[in-house]
C-alpha cells in the first residue's frame, strides 16, 4: 500500500513538473487576498477560492487530501479541496472514531475502527461539509469543497496569494470561514485577470470566537 502511494505521489510530482513547464510559457496572474475583521485585525484560517467562470480555474495537481484525527480532534480543523477530491481519514488516534456529516448532498458515515480498512470519501458536490464523530460528541471539523482548483487559506496576517493563468475574462474570488457571520453575497469580489490584483475583504459583522477543542470537548461523565 505504501509502495502504491509512493508511485501515485511520483506520478503527481511528474504531472506537476509538466504543468509547471507548460505554465512557463503562459504568464500567470496573481491575486493577493487579505481578510480583515470589523476591528481591522487580520483574520487567519479563512478559505479563499476562485469560482466561476470555470475556465479561469486551473486544475489542481493533487487529487487526494487528508483529514486526520489526532487527540480526538480533526486535523486540520478546516480543509479546502477541489470537487472530486478523494479525502483520506487515517485516524491517528488509539481510540475508534465514527465520522459522519449530515451536510447534504455530501453527507456520509465512515466508521474508523482500528485494523479495519476504509476507502477515502470523494466529495462530488461543492459546499461546506461539517464533520462530527458519533463517539466523541465534541469533535468538529470542516471540509470546504470548491468548484475550483485555485484556493488557499489565509495565514496569521490574514493573507493568501493565489496564482491564475492569465487570459481574458473575469473571475470571482470567494471567502468562507465558520467564524464569519457576514452575508455570503458580500464575500464575493469580481476581478479581471488581465493583471495582478490585490483584494481586501473587510468584514462588517463581529466574528464568532475561534473553535476551542478543549471547551467543546468538556466531557460529562460517560462512566
Amino acid at each position, binding site marked *: 500500500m505504501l509502495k502504491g502511494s509512493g508511485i501515485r505521489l511520483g506520478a503527481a510530482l511528474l504531472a506537476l513538473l509538466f504543468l509547471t513547464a507548460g505554465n512557463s510559457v503562459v504568464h500567470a496572474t496573481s491575486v493577493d487576498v487579505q481578510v480583515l475583521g470589523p476591528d481591522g485585525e487580520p483574520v487567519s484560517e479563512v478559505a479563499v477560492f476562485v469560482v466561476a467562470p470555470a475556465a479561469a480555474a486551473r486544475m489542481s495537481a493533487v487529487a487526494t487530501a487528508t483529514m486526520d484525527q489526532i487527540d480526538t480532534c480533526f486535523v486540520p480543523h478546516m480543509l479546502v479541496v477541489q470537487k472530486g477530491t478523494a479525502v483520506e481519514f487515517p485516524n491517528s488516534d488509539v*481510540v475508534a472514531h465514527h465520522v459522519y456529516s449530515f451536510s447534504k448532498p455530501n453527507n456520509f458515515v465512515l466508521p474508523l475502527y482500528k485494523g479495519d480498512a476504509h476507502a477515502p470519501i470523494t466529495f462530488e458536490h461543492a459546499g461546506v461539509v461539517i464533520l462530527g464523530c*458519533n*463517539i466523541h460528541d465534541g469533535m*468538529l471539523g470542516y471540509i470546504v469543497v470548491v468548484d475550483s482548483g485555485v484556493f488557499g487559506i489565509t495565514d496569521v496576517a490574514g493573507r493568501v496569494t493565489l496564482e491564475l493563468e492569465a487570459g481574458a475574462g473575469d473571475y470571482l474570488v470567494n471567502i468562507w470561514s465558520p467564524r464569519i457571520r457576514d452575508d455570503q453575497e458580500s464575500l464575493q469580489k469580481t476581478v479581471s485577470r488581465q493583471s495582478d490584483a490585490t483584494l481586501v475583504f473587510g468584514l462588517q459583522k463581529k466574528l*464568532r470566537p475561534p473553535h476551542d477543542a478543549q471547551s*467543546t470537548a468538556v*466531557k*460529562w*461523565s460517560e*462512566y
Partner: protein
Amino acid sequence: MVRILIVVALFGAAGVAANAVEIAPGHTTDIGLDVGYIDVSGYPSWTDGSVGKLRYSDDGFVLNRAFVDYRGRWADSLHAHVVLEGYDDDIGSAIDFTQAYLEWRPVPRSATRYRLKLGAFYPRISLENVDASWSSPYAASSSAINTWIAEEIRTFGAELSISRRPATLGGLHAFSADVAAFRGNDPAGALLAWKGW
C-alpha cells in the same frame, strides 16, 4: 484528635479510558484495584451506628474497591457498558453490578443528536466522576454530592438524551435535554435526611 487516612491506588483506579485494555476489536476493559491502610481515631464510623464520617472504624489494610469496567461496540451505533464492583468494608463484603446498560447512538442527520440508554446507569450529571467505573480522576474518594447521586439517583430504566449543537454552525454553546423513566429507586433525598450532607 489525629486522623490519618492513607489510600494507595495500585493501578487502574486513576486511569483514564485510554488506559483501557482492548480485549477484542471494539471491546475494552479497565480493571482497577484500590487498597488502603487505615489508621483512624475519633468517633466510630457511621457504618457502626455512630457519628464518625469515615467508612471504617478499625485500623489496618482494607480493600476499598475492585472493579472491572467493560465497554463494547456491539454494532456501529449500539454500545454496551457494564461495571462489576467488589467491596469489603465494615458494612460487609459485596460483589455487584453498579452499571449495566445498552446505549443506542444513531448517527445524526441534523444538528440535533439523540441518545437512548436502557439499563442501570448514572445520570449524565457529573463533571468530576469521569473515570472508569464512575470514579474521580482528581480525588481518592467521591465528593459528597456524587456519593449521594451514586447511592440514590442511579436509575434502572431508560433515558433519552436530545442535544442540539449549534456549534456545528459556529456557535459556542450546545443545549441538551435528558428525559428518563425509571423504577425501583428510593425516594431521592431520603439519604440526605438520614446522614446529612
